[in-house]
């Protein structure tokens, strides 16, 4: 069990109903954590349309999660 700090943006923030939370999880990877949250909160975006960032850098979905990390899931971007 690890504890991670999650920050939500845009459609994920709205679907979660808050902007950040600290969470205890058994998820070993960013991918597993996203699927866990998706089940729990009903996120509409499938994982293949989202990217993961850990400690302010993009990471591969299968990168291992570690205790205390800051995790952000990036919905499809739309700047400009």
């Amino acid at each position, binding site marked *: 069990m690890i504890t991670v700090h999650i920050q939500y*943006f845009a*459609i994920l923030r709205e679907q979660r109903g808050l902007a950040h939370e600290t969470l205890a999880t058994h998820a070993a990877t960013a991918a597993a954590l996203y699927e866990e949250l998706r089940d729990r909160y009903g996120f*509409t975006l499938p994982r293949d*349309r989202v990217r993961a*960032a850990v400690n*302010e850098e993009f990471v591969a979905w299968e990168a291992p999660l570690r205790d205390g990390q800051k995790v*952000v899931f990036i919905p499809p971007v739309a*700047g*400009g």
Partner: protein
Amino acid sequence: MFRISTEPLDSAVLQRSLADAHAGACVTFEGWVRDHNEGQPVVALDYEAYAPLAQKEGLRILAEARERFAIRGAVCVHRVGALKIGELAVWVGVTAAHRGAAFDACRYLIDEAKARVPIWKKEHYGDGATVWINCATRGDFAHQLKT
């Protein structure tokens, strides 16, 4: 220079920051909040950024442009918050000795920024509906067709 701004952008000030006696060309791109999108009337926009990562990705894109094109200065600033029709959402400016590099780099910067920088846009329509752009899923489309 890459920056996420919560304040309105002033293109004259931004362009002056690129003044350079060695530069013969300055190309700028401005993204304005448009009153329609795909046939729907738009009344306002919200932009939101994951600022620390946006900043890093923005600087990476600027560095790539400097490697690819013979440019001198390059600036990209993106506004966040609630924007009204006609407001400036993003400003990109590039200087170079010659115009070809300035045009190509400016285009590269805005294309890459739109594709890669973690910034999101929510459109507000005349009927009160809102949509996070690019975030529709098959289910959303089905819903939209029904309403």
